[in-house]
């Protein structure tokens, strides 16, 4: 597992990917890799927990958009939780939040997604 991915687990049919550190190209690629594998094995619901990623750049965001586009094709869902203020603002500007929900906590996200 990459340093950028702290944990990957499945709960109530939702794949929870917990990231760590700078969410840049490296972290984005790591998430994309996990996502691709899980999607191939049939998962369509993903939650990215960014509690430990307080900084993102547009390359990391563009990879997330790529994942969202892929999920839209299979009617899947992508959601985010524990976003730092500046990260949420970036997601808003880059348009991610138009297609994905943002939750305050993992539990509240699971409640809606599962």
């Amino acid at each position: 597992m990459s340093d950028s991915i702290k944990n990957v687990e499945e709960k109530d049919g939702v794949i929870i990917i917990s990231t760590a550190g700078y969410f840049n190209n490296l972290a984005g690629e790591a998430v994309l890799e996990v996502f691709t594998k899980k999607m191939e094995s049939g998962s369509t619901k993903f939650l990215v927990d960014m509690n430990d990623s307080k900084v993102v750049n547009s390359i990391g965001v563009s990879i997330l958009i790529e994942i969202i586009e892929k999920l839209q094709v299979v009617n899947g869902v992508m959601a985010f939780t524990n976003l730092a203020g500046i990260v949420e603002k970036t997601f808003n500007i880059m348009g991610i939040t138009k297609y994905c929900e943002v939750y305050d906590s993992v539990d509240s996200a699971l409640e809606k997604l599962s």
Partner: protein
Amino acid sequence: MVSPISSKKSIEDLENQLLKKNKILNEKYLELETLLDLTNTINSLDDLNELFFNVLTLSSSILNSSKGIVLIKNNVSNIFDTVSSFNIEEENIKKQIFNTRSGFLRKLNKEKKSFIVSNKDDFNHELFDSKKALISPILYNNKLVGAVILFDKESRDGIKNFKQNDLKLLEAISIQTSIAFQNVKLLESLKKSNKLNENIMSSITTGIVEINLFGEIEFINKEALRLLKKDENEVIGNHFFIIFEKNNLLIDLIQKVELEQKRIFESEFNLKSKSKNISVNLSCSPVFDEGKSFSGIVIAMDDLSKINKVKSTFKKYVSKNIVDKLLENENSLNLGGEESEITILFSDIRGFTSMSEKLSPKQIVKLLNKYFQSMIDVVFKFNGTLDKIVGDELMVLYGVPLKNENDTENAVKTAIEMFKSLDKFNSKIVKDGFEPFKIGIGINKGKAVSGNIGSEQQMNYTVIGDTINLGARLCSHAKSGEILISKSVKDVIKDVHKFKEISPIEVKGKSKPIDVWVYKHK
């Protein structure tokens, strides 16, 4: 005619172009928003570590750099220390030393403007395994004090060179950072100077009260709190009307200064504190701001109670001149019982007992008081310290409690002038029908122990020792109109020619006769 397929392709192309443009616009919008956030963050921070970390993370975020550092010049070593880093391991940071003698900092120090480092540049620094960087100066008074460095511009296709647009953006950020750095440094220096000011104010023995334009107490030091018998909490922020409630005169003074905007000084002002009145020297001064507008009042209060205590203790014994000198320099005061070189003068009225038999007690007291007053005036004129009056005898000290270079000289001058003063005194009392006073004086010089001697109930400043005893003996040997001095006195005075050596005298307690010199008043 356009085929449906080519028309569909054109629409798709248009859509793609729109999406691309939209993405670019969003990224620009994000840049602007982040820059605005950064400006707000920078201006609200007063902690440099937090400031630099925010600069690094936000600029890395908008410029897609993979890592970054902030270097700040160490004032002691002139090395630029890494004060903040982003996405770089601690161990890698420690491996590099940066200074302006070489590498990219040399260029930055010379040009003082941002630049891009690409593969072709060689600055003899590994730059944390990167060959692509964006370097921007942090300036203080146009001198290089630090640098913001971002490494490796990320893209989906790998690491790219930074572009001119990135450079402009980082330059804007580093200008903001420089301003914030200056502000924080100024704030630190202001805090330091405030602290120093506070320490000075709390350690000085003058009570200081600062009143602002609205009449509220803005500052009060420890001494003023002590004088007013108040706590800082009950004073700060309160109107002077409340704080000086019992001091109507002080309120009047403050109002007068407010009105006339001129300094007022009141000596021995009666300040009313909680339980008692304290005598203070008080000055009430207007304060003006840089624009010379009236901005408040500062009151300074010097407690006179300690000074008055010293004055009242000594004024009966020494001249005002000596009291002032003692107060000016407390270290010169020796009350602790130390042996020192002194000169002692004794004077005695000859035939006083037979004279007093002819007078009533009331007349005796009146005459003696007049006599002593005229003698003591002379004593004080020459800075003598009146040790005691016993019956008709005066005992005067020179050299204690305050030492002067010409103490012995002064003792002799006192003695000579005492006779002149006695002549005047006598001419007056003779007119009133009384017999003239006749006195003899003895002066000796030598070591003696001085200090406060006595019991807890009664303690007096005096001197003891052989020198004193011999002084007293010389006085008792002196005939009317004579001043007898010892060799130790004769050896140091200028007017020695006025004295004539006579036969040595036998004194009690001395095995050998004592050499003496005499001055005879006409």
